[in-house]
């Protein structure tokens, strides 16, 4: 189900916690599995439950709680728009709406070309520069329609480079 490399990484995380607290490894194990497979299928979550010896429902609970875990395949770029209080007061709805129009998808959906997934997430801790979104490991802050268009163009360009 998972590669030797991923299993070794999970084993390294496992060693950090007491023997009777396997559940503590769960978040790390889910991250490692997602990095390898792109998203968390029901099968891989059940596999992790067996690996850690915890009930499968505890894996589902954690995976559905955090927006960082994807339960369906996602596009190459995941646009995570913060919708919590500071961003909401500074126009996160408009950000979402603008991206929806530009990409032709609703939050939670992926574009037909597989490039973008749009998602609304909870607070990412960048309130002083609201509204903001996260793509990969990068935060993009003080968003405007212009900066969003520029961001989309940049991400499309990066994708072309890769190809």
């Amino acid at each position, binding site marked *: 189900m998972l590669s030797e490399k991923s299993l070794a990484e999970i084993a390294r995380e496992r060693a950090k916690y007491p023997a009777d607290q396997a559940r503590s490894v769960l978040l790390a194990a889910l991250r490692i599995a997602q990095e390898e497979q792109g998203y968390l299928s029901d099968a891989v979550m*059940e596999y992790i439950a067996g690996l850690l010896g915890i*009930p499968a*429902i505890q894996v*589902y609970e954690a995976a*559905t*709680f955090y927006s960082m875990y994807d339960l369906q395949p996602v596009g190459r770029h995941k646009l995570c728009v913060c919708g919590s209080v500071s961003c909401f007061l500074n126009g996160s709805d408009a950000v979402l709406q603008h991206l929806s129009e530009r990409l032709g998808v609703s939050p939670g959906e992926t574009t037909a070309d597989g490039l973008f997934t749009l998602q609304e997430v*909870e607070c990412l801790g960048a309130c002083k520069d609201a509204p903001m979104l996260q793509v990969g490991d990068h935060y993009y802050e003080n968003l405007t329609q212009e900066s969003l268009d520029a961001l989309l163009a940049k991400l499309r360009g990066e994708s072309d480079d890769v190809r």
Partner: protein
Amino acid sequence: MPHIEIDGQSIEVVPGTTIMEAAQALGIYIPFFCYHPKLSVAANCRMCLVDVEKAPKPLPACATPVADGMKVATASRKAKMAQQGVLEFLLINHPLDCPVCDQGGECPLQDITMGFANPHSQYAEEKRVVQDPNIGPLIATEMTRCIQCTRCVRFGQEIGGIMELGATGRGEHMAIGTYVAKAVQSELSGNMIDLCPVGALTSKPFRFKARSWELKHTPGLCPHCSTGCNTDVQSLGREVLRVLPRANQAVNEEWICDKGRYAYTGLQAEDRVTRPLLRVDGVWREASWAEALDVALSGLEQVIARHGAERLAGLISAQSGNEELFLFQALLRGMGSPHVDHRLRQQDFRADAAMPVYPALNMALEDLEREPLILLCHAFPRQQQPLTNHRLRKSVLQGGKVIAIDSLRQDFNYPVTQLVAEAGADLALYAALCSHLSGHAGKTGVESLADVASDLLAADNPLILIGSALLHHPQAAAMIAQIESLAGLAGARVGWLAQDANSAGAWLSGCVPHRLPGGHRAQTIGLPADALWDADMRGFILLGTEPGVDAMRGVAALAALQKAEFVLSIAQFAGEAKQYADVILPMAAFAEGAGSFINNEGRLQTFRAAVKTPEEARPAWKILRVLGDGLNLPGFQFNELSEVTATWQREIGEYALDVPPFRTFPVLEPVPVSPHADDGLRRLGDWPLFRGDPLVRRAIPLTQPAVVKMHPDQVRALALQGDFVEISTSGGKVCLPLVADAGIPMGTVWVPMGYAETAILGAAYAACSVSTATPPATATGT
């Protein structure tokens, strides 16, 4: 000790007590949803917020330990505002569907809203809607009503021992469910319905049947296993509509298992008999009581006149009350027959003389929780006595250890060290453990035996529990003898896990062929149940039992019954009796009669009738009384049940709660396990949770199809293809679905007993063979 004041009343409590517990001790009511004394404290519903002096914010009473000098107000302005605020939030997403909700009338949310809410809500937006998962045939879900108290989730984790429900999603998307669609498997799942403080989880079989205030409540006793759970039988008119637990902390605490909760649905089975039935020239017809009794009495008299009373035998279910068991053996023995038994599943009766007066746990159920080391001998209480199992689980959670010896690896819901016998080597495993204990161990195949032996020797007076399934083994007597020496070597106490609700009563009342009421030795010793099938019996009286599926050798039993000249079946259901009986007399079923049971602890408990018997059906004790009277037997002149009870009590005398686990053991001739071919397999099998008696077998919501289980390596080794296999024994063959299960040892095949289709295979532990088959499943005899 902290001294605190709640609403002006003062109380001194032990440190660590919560405000909730202190308030309850004072009789002060604080509303709550998520708090439950048997579950961990979650403090997530916030309903129990109270005003604590010097605390800036209201505090949850369930999660706040008292401190000395604390002054708490449960009805101050601040407390009331908190209560109203919490309720307003809870009701934001709760639908206003009380008129169509089964919880209506017994709903804490409804009651607390009436008592504590502000009648006006500021919320005018849309309510959320939650998809309802299908979690099986027992629990109906309506998750839009859920207030996320997580009592059901905590129950699964903490009491049921398998966490199946969880809270997935976040914020307003949080929902309780299984995430991946599946039916809940816990044998205690129905208790989640009782725990749910709203109508999110309700009973599926009870759905829309009645309102709680219409129901009549009758204190009842569960007739399905030896724990003796106290129940609350709720009925409307003549119909039992549901069975709920009745709290008794010494027995079932406040739980019952799903068998006890839902078996009542079997009362509506199509083959329920409500009028006496006679077979005339091979055709069944209804008859009056007078006519049916005439035929029954003359049938019995003819058997005795032609063949003698020793050709007549009686078999009774150990779900019968003490009064019925007593009258049944009095009837048989009064007619001159010594053959009376209730142990239809047993194969080996060589230990009869050594058996205790009754199968006693020899301790209180509550004390099981405090046992540091328990050795289970062929016992799987999770299936056989679910709430006794709960006590064992508690002992393990408190640091106790449970070791199990069995023919297969069982699916316990707590950590158990399991010693699994190789195919057919059950007795050898006990013998090997004995040699380890006495320090004469040779090389054995089971490496952990030495560890178990040292655990037993290190423990101070460990407890050995003999499972009801051990008696089903063909070498049961030899295994009991080994356990006796094992107990001596380990300095252990021994208790028996009795099988049926009134197994103890059946032994004490004399429904065994070698003992009279009170456990006195019988002058003439009759044949045990299994021997009757081969003993050319000419007449049978059956009470509440279906030997075709209840007996270890069901097919042999059916053949013997069909061959007999006269069979009288006193039964709730016609069922298989139509194949062999001449007269069927309709008797009261569960909840329709009164009586008493003795549970595994030796606790005598009584129950009353909750509903009237349907049509012409009568309580079994009245039927037995009329039969005894009709045969002019002395001692049958009873008018009231209480008179029978008094006579029974006088006959059995005082019985001890702590009985010696064994009497003097006879020397046993070894019985070889039946040989099997080189490539042969051994068939394991026992009665699953929902197949053990006529009522539960007819409970449609509890129906589970029979499947064959084999080790995945065994499946590969035999190159079995597809989903179905054919099992053959010397008795016949049957085609069933195959499930791979790593708990089944190599060289064995698990096929459940208690199904008409598997009865053809004969007794458990016999040799068998398996081959690939194609459905549909059909049974054929040879």
